[in-house]
C-alpha cells in the first residue's frame, strides 16, 4: 500500500490553487419554469460572492413588484414571470454568458442587471447588440448612461458623479480640502474618484494621495498607514460591500476615526448592518432610505418588505429591484407594446408614480441619457438610537434632487444613436 502523501505532487497543489481561482467564479444556475404566453423579465444579478447580500435584496424588491403587477393583471394583460440567474459578483464572462442565455434561450422581453459596475456595462453592451430593453438596477459607473450609453439601456441607481456631486460640497465645507482616497480598483471606484477629483479641483483642493485597492481585499492596514502618513483633512473611502466593512473596522481599531475625518460617497444599509456600533460614523450618500416621514406609500412598502425578509427593513437595493420591475410595466403600458424601440421611446421623460417612486421630487428618466433622476439622501451613519429601530443606522440631513447633482446630458459624454 502506498502512502497517500507520496501521491501528492507539487503540480497537484498548483492545480488545486488554480482550481481555487476557478472556484471564485463558479456559480450555480438558478432557473424557474416558464410558460409560453407570459411576459418574461430576466434578472442577471449576483446571488453569490461579495455582492450576494445586495443581490438578494434587489431580488426581494423585484419579487414584491412582480407580485403587485401580477395582482393587477400583469403587463399588457399577460402574466409576468421573473427568470433569475446568478451573475456572480465579479466574473464578467459568467455575467455575459447568463445574459446571452436569458436573451437567446429564454427570450426575455426585459433584461435587468447588474450590481457590479463592470458587469452592468458588459451586460448593457450585450443587450445593445441584441436590441433588448435593459435596465441597470444598481451598477453606478458613469459610462452606463455616459460615454457608453445605449438607446435601450436605462438605469435606476445614480451615476457615481451624481453621488460625489451631492456630497462633495458638504465634505469640503465641513472637513477641508486635503483628501486621501482609498478606492476599490474597478470601474465603480475609479469613476467615484474621478468625480471627487473634479469637485476637489473646482474647490482648489489637494489630493494628497490615492490607493487603488483590489476588489475583495481583507487587509487595509497598509493603505491606512499610508493615508495617515500624509496627514489629510479627510480620508475618503470609495469602497463597497465587504471591502467597506473591512476598511472601516480596521480604521476604528487603528484609532484613525479619532484623528481624521473619514467619509465617502456611496454608503449602503447592508454595510452599516455589518458594522459594530463604533464603526458607524462618517458622512455619506444613501440612494434611498426607509425612514421618510410623510412621503406617500413608503410605510406600506416598508411593512410589506418586512413581511418578506424576516422583519428586516428595505434598503436602497430593495428599492432598486422594486423600481426596475415596475419600470418594465410602466414602459410597456405607455408604449402599449413589448417592442424594445417602442419601449425605449416611451421611457423618455417617464415619471415614476408615487407608489413606485417612494421618495420626494418626482423621479423621472431623463431624455438623452436614459438616467433616472431620483432624490439622493445625504447624511451620516449612526448607531441605532436607544429604544429606536435597530436598523435605523443613518440620519438624513439633506435631500438633493438628482437633476441638481447630475452632469448635463451634454457633459455626460452620452451620444445616443437610435436604430433607424
Amino acid at each position, binding site marked *: 500500500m502506498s502512502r497517500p*502523501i507520496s501521491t*501528492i505532487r507539487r503540480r*497537484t497543489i498548483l492545480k488545486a490553487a488554480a482550481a*481555487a481561482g476557478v472556484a471564485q467564479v463558479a456559480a450555480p444556475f438558478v432557473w424557474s419554469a416558464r410558460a409560453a404566453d407570459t411576459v418574461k423579465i430576466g434578472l442577471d444579478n449576483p446571488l453569490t460572492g461579495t455582492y*450576494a447580500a445586495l443581490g*438578494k435584496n434587489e431580488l426581494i424588491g423585484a419579487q414584491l413588484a412582480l407580485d403587485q403587477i401580477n395582482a393587477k393583471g400583469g403587463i399588457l394583460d399577460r402574466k409576468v414571470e421573473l427568470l433569475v440567474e446568478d451573475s456572480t459578483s465579479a466574473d464578467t464572462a459568467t455575467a455575459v454568458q447568463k445574459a446571452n442565455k436569458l436573451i437567446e434561450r429564454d427570450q426575455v422581453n426585459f433584461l435587468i442587471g447588474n450590481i457590479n459596475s463592470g458587469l452592468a456595462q458588459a451586460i448593457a453592451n450585450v443587450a445593445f447588440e441584441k436590441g433588448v430593453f435593459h435596465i441597470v438596477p444598481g451598477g453606478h459607473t458613469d459610462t452606463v448612461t455616459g460615454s457608453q450609453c445605449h438607446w435601450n439601456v436605462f438605469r435606476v441607481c445614480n451615476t457615481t458623479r451624481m453621488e460625489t456631486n451631492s456630497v462633495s460640497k458638504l465634505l469640503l465645507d465641513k472637513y477641508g480640502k486635503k483628501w486621501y482616497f482609498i478606492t476599490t480598483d474597478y470601474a465603480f471606484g475609479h469613476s467615484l474618484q474621478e468625480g471627487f477629483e473634479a469637485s476637489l479641483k473646482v474647490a482648489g483642493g489637494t489630493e494628497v494621495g490615492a490607493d487603488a485597492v483590489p476588489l475583495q481585499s481583507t487587509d487595509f*492596514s497598509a493603505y491606512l*498607514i499610508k493615508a495617515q502618513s500624509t496627514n489629510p483633512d479627510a480620508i475618503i473611502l470609495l469602497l463597497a460591500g465587504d471591502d467597506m466593512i*473591512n476598511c472601516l473596522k480596521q480604521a476604528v481599531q487603528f484609532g484613525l476615526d479619532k484623528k481624521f475625518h473619514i467619509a465617502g460617497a456611496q454608503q449602503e444599509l447592508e454595510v452599516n448592518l455589518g458594522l459594530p456600533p463604533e464603526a458607524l460614523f462618517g458622512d455619506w450618500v444613501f440612494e434611498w432610505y426607509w425612514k421618510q416621514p410623510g412621503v406617500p406609500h413608503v410605510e406600506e412598502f416598508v411593512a410589506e418588505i418586512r413581511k418578506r425578509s424576516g422583519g428586516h427593513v428595505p434598503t436602497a437595493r430593495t428599492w432598486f429591484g422594486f423600481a426596475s420591475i415596475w419600470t418594465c410595466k410602466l414602459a410597456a403600458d405607455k408604449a402599449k407594446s413589448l417592442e424594445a424601440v417602442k419601449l425605449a421611446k416611451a421611457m423618455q421623460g417617464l415619471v415614476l408614480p408615487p407608489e413606485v417612486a417612494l421618495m420626494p421630487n418626482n423621479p423621472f428618466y431623463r431624455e438623452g441619457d436614459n438616467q433616472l433622476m431620483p432624490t439622493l439622501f445625504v447624511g451620516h451613519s449612526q448607531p441605532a438610537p436607544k429604544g429606536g429601530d435597530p436598523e435605523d443606522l443613518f440620519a438624513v440631513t439633506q435631500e438633493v434632487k438628482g437633476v441638481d447633482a447630475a452632469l448635463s446630458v451634454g457633459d455626460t459624454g452620452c451620444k445616443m444613436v437610435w436604430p433607424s
Partner: protein
Amino acid sequence: MEPKDAAPCCVPFALRVCSMSTLLLFNVFNGLIIGAFYAMMALGLSLILNLSGVINFAHGGFLAIGGYLAYTLVPFLGFWGALIVAPFLTAIVGVAIERVLIRPLYGRDPLYSLLLTFGLAFLIEDGTRFIWGAQSLPYRIPEALNSPLSTEFFFLTGYRVFMVALVALVVLGLFLILTRTRLGLRIRAGTLDLETVSVLGVNVRVLRNLNFGLGIYLAGLAGVLAVGMLGLTPTIGDSLIMPSFITIIVGGLGSLPGTLLGGLLIGVASGLTSVFYPSASEAVIYVIMAAVLIVRPRGLLGEEGRF
C-alpha cells in the same frame, strides 16, 4: 468624531512618518502580523495534507464556520468564551465530515478528495448563507482590544497584538504536541511512513481523524480571529484560502516551519508592495510563488527529493 485639532500629535508624527524608511518599517511589522495569520491557517492545511494527502479546499469554509459559531455563541459565552469554544465545535464538525465523507476516499487518487473538498466548500458557503443569511453580520471585540496601543505605532492595535500572541501560542502548542506527545509522534511518523505506523499497531483511521480535527481547529480559530477585523459573511474564507495555499507552496510542502516562514514572507511582501504599487499587493504573492517554484521547486524549507 473629535475635531482634528484635538489630536495634535498626529501632525509632528506625520512629518516623521513621511520618511519612506519609516513607512517601510511600519509595513514590515504590519506584514509580519498579517503573515502570522496566514501561517496559522496554512498550518492547518499543511497538517491535513502531510498526513492524509488531502488538499482541503473547504478550509476557508471551515474558517467561516468558526466565525459564525463564535458569532452565535457570543451572546451566551461572551467574546472569550466564544474564542475558546467555537474552534472546538468547528473541529468537531471537521472530524464528523472526515469520518463520513473523506475517509472513504483515502487510498484513491488525491484528485477525488480534492474534488470532494472543492464541492464541500460550496456546500459550506451556501449552508452558512442559508442559516445565517447573506448579510454581513456585526461582530464586536472587547473595548480593551479595539484601540491602538500607542499613538505613534497606531497600527499595533490591541487586537492585532493579541492575535499575534495567540498565533505564537498556538504554533508553540502545535510544535509541543507534535514533538512531545504520543499523538504528535504518531502524526509525524505517519507523515513519513504511514504503512509502517499502521503495522506497528497504531489505528491509522483514528490518527487521521484526530489530525484532521486538529487542522480544522486551526481553521476555526483563524475564523474567530478573522471576524474581529473583517466582515462576517459566507465568503469570508474565500480571500484567505489562496494566500494559505501559496504559503505552504512557498514555505515547502511537508515543512511546518516552512509554512510559518512562508506566511510571514508573503505577508511582508504584500504589505511592502502596498506602499509602492497597491494594485499589485495581491499579485506579488503569486510572483513570489512563481519565483520559488523556478529557483527552489521544493519550497524554502521543503525536504529535498520529497517532491
